[in-house]
């Protein structure tokens, strides 16, 4: 009896659906092509997964508070461009250029948050505008050309962010540890801390939260800044790893990241969010992208599967939600 209720409780969790989907996905891809679980493939998949994942973690908190950020993809492209431009022009060292990129990102997050909370403009419009401003700036500054990046060799910043080493046959990048640390920290914030309670209340019923003295605007502005910072960090990590700084990189990432978050079970309307679900959502989409190519489905068909997964998971979440509301 006790056992059964434990299983039932497990099934009722919003993370359960994504978890099952991920297992099925891995099993199907592996059964078709055993190389899918080869150390090399796992290493390759993980390297890029955590970069998008860093953005998705921050987006989870932001979406729980009832907002979202479409400018993350453009920041992913812009921040490394800014860092390399400062470095290549001899103005700053790479490290100072990195800090400058983070600072600018924080400022962009602040502006996003200010427009949303003070001018009461929906985050969709504010961050769409910001997407164009930031992407446009990246293209304008670089004339649309990639920046030189070959001089990162031996920089301690590169070592700390994307230094790689082998664990057995697996090639691991330092960025994996940054991702794990961020997931644990933000998961803690969301579920254990007082701030997490405020984030959920801000998304669930902002007026009730305000009436209880919760600084709803402060919470949201803070999360917009966090979202921009994480997008910037992810962009720099990706740039250092691939030795490329293309002003166009990150195009379309905002939607992929939001898809990861909602597939994991975070509500698009705010009030409910799960970091564990997001981690599963990140893996589901990245495994799908990798697996499709590996089993020989044309890469161009990728979006069909992603779209189907989003629709399927939304249907599942809404069904679970209704069951939950009905108290069964």
């Amino acid at each position, binding site marked *: 009896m006790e056992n059964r209720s434990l299983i039932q409780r497990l099934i009722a969790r919003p993370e359960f659906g994504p978890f099952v989907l991920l297992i099925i996905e891995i099993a199907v891809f592996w059964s078709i092509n055993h190389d899918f679980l080869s150390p090399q493939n796992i290493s390759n998949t993980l390297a890029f997964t955590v970069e998008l994942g860093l953005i998705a973690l921050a987006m989870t908190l932001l979406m729980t508070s009832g907002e979202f950020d479409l400018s993350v993809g453009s920041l992913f492209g812009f921040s490394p461009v800014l860092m390399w431009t400062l470095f290549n022009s001899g103005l700053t060292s790479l490290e100072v250029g990195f800090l400058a990129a983070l600072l600018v990102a924080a400022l962009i997050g602040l502006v996003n948050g200010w427009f949303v909370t003070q001018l009461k403009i929906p985050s969709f419009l504010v961050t769409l505008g910001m997407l164009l401003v930031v992407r446009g700036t990246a293209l304008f500054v670089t004339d649309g050309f990639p920046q030189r990046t070959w001089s990162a060799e031996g920089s301690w910043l590169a070592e700390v962010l994307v230094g790689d080493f082998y664990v057995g046959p697996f090639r691991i990048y330092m960025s994996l540890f940054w991702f794990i640390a961020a997931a644990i920290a933000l998961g803690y914030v969301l579920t*254990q*801390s*007082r*701030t*997490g*309670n*405020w984030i*959920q*209340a801000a*998304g*669930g*019923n902002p*007026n*009730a*939260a*305000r*009436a*209880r*003295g*919760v600084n709803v605007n402060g919470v949201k502005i803070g999360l917009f800044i966090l979202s921009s910072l994480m997008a910037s960090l992810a962009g720099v990590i990706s740039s250092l790893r691939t030795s490329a700084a293309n002003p166009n990189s990150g195009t379309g990432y905002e939607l992929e990241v939001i898809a990861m978050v909602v597939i994991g079970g975070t*509500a698009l309307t705010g*009030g*409910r969010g799960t970091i564990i679900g997001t981690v599963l959502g990140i893996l589901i989409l990245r495994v799908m992208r990798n697996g499709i190519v590996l089993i020989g489905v044309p890469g161009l068909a990728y979006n069909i599967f992603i779209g189907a997964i989003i629709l399927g998971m939304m249907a599942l979440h809404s069904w679970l939600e209704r069951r*939950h*509301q009905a*108290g069964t």
Partner: protein
Amino acid sequence: MAEPLVRMTNIKKSYGRVQALEDANFHVNEREIVGLLGDNGAGKSTLIKVLSGAVPLTSGDIFIRGKKVNLRRTSDAIAHGIETIYQDSALVTQLSIARNLFLGREPIKPPRFLNRMDQEAMNVVARDLLKQVGISKNIPPTTPIGSLSGGERQAVAIARAMHFDSDLIILDEPTNNLGVAETQGVLSFVRNARDSGHSCIFIAHNIHHVFQVVDRIVVMRRGKVVADDIDPKKTSVAEVERIITGMSDKEIRDAIIEGRPSHG
């Protein structure tokens, strides 16, 4: 008579050219349940919004225990011990009972820099409060508000007001959309709140619900308080209905003393 808990004098509130409140005078004594009645547009909602800090008044004064106060925000009113409970808006449906009770005042476990909520302590207090307010069912404090019934939500909101020592709990249409048993539950929560030392303002369309629970009835009409000392034990429902609708001025004058508060 001692100074009342809350006294509002000559309250005016206009929205543009519309005069929602015209020299309204109103008071609530300590440990008293006041029923606030009036037809739609009589001004009772506006009066409550002024008192709960949701809208600023145009002119007039508000005193709490004789001290003049300025209520510019909802949080000002809460800081002065005035808690307003609207049917649904006071709680976050996605959060648990315990997390709602302590929203904005979550206890923190040491070490403080970890900012970690003391969820065990919150659950213990929540369980105790639910019992105190009179919820008979055994509802775990980790239950999300979304899966509670309307009456249970009212109970949680009342429990929160009691726990944080609100002197005055304003209930706006607490019995709307509730079944008979649920309504009786809410009425008994209100009585429990008064018995443990809190005052209440009770607003309801259903006069019978008001009669069952209040100590004194106040009636508003066209932005004014037209009767403020109706004893529900000595007055009939029909009589109060006549005052609310203002059938004839003579009848009203017989039943009340117009616009003059009897206390304060």
